């Protein structure tokens, strides 16, 4: 299983999904009304490293995080 966490202002509980890549995650989240607007402006990290392509393989135990727009300071 892959754990998916939604950081900062995305008000959504973590998911545990049986997926093998980020493409599958994208297809699942696109059907989720609560994610409308967040997919286009959020970055994605796998095991706390940002990734730049959704052609990214996932394995059992991986952790995916969605990071919406930031503003520290």
């Amino acid at each position, binding site marked *: 299983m892959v754990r998916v966490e939604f950081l900062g202002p995305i008000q959504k509980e973590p998911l545990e999904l049986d997926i093998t890549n980020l493409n599958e995650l994208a297809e699942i989240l696109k059907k989720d009304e609560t994610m409308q607007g967040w997919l286009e*402006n959020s*970055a994605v990290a796998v095991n706390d490293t940002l990734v730049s*392509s959704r052609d990214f393989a996932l394995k059992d135990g991986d952790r995916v995080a969605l990071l919406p727009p*930031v503003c*520290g300071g």
Partner: protein
Amino acid sequence: MLYLYDGALDVPRILKEWYEQEASSNYGAYIPFVGTVRSEDGIDGLSFDIYEPILNSWFDAWQQKAKERGAIIKMAHSRGDVMLHESSYIAAVFSPKRRVALEFIDEFVEDFKASAPIWKYDLKDAKRIYALDRSTAIKGSGILK
């Protein structure tokens, strides 16, 4: 050297501590930047969420860049609520010469604003409102759209 605190930063104490930590390190320049919450748009204050694992790796990469120029960076940031006229952010560069420190603090703070995984909320009328219009999408965002 990254320091996270619950609530507002004790600015005089932190600046003094950092000064004392490096007092005999032979740095010729100590350039701090202090961010203070201003009164605007009727807010009572700001509030912050931080994702520490990625903040730590982002900061470590900058510390390595600083090291390559003979400098070091220190940064302090608040978690949770920070009210008007209190401070939520301090960044400082120590370097042998002032020019490196002045340039580096500018580059560092700009990237901090664009990349550090920290989320800001306005505190207004007892609500915590995400400051989306002042936020920046991290480079590479949107791969799942």
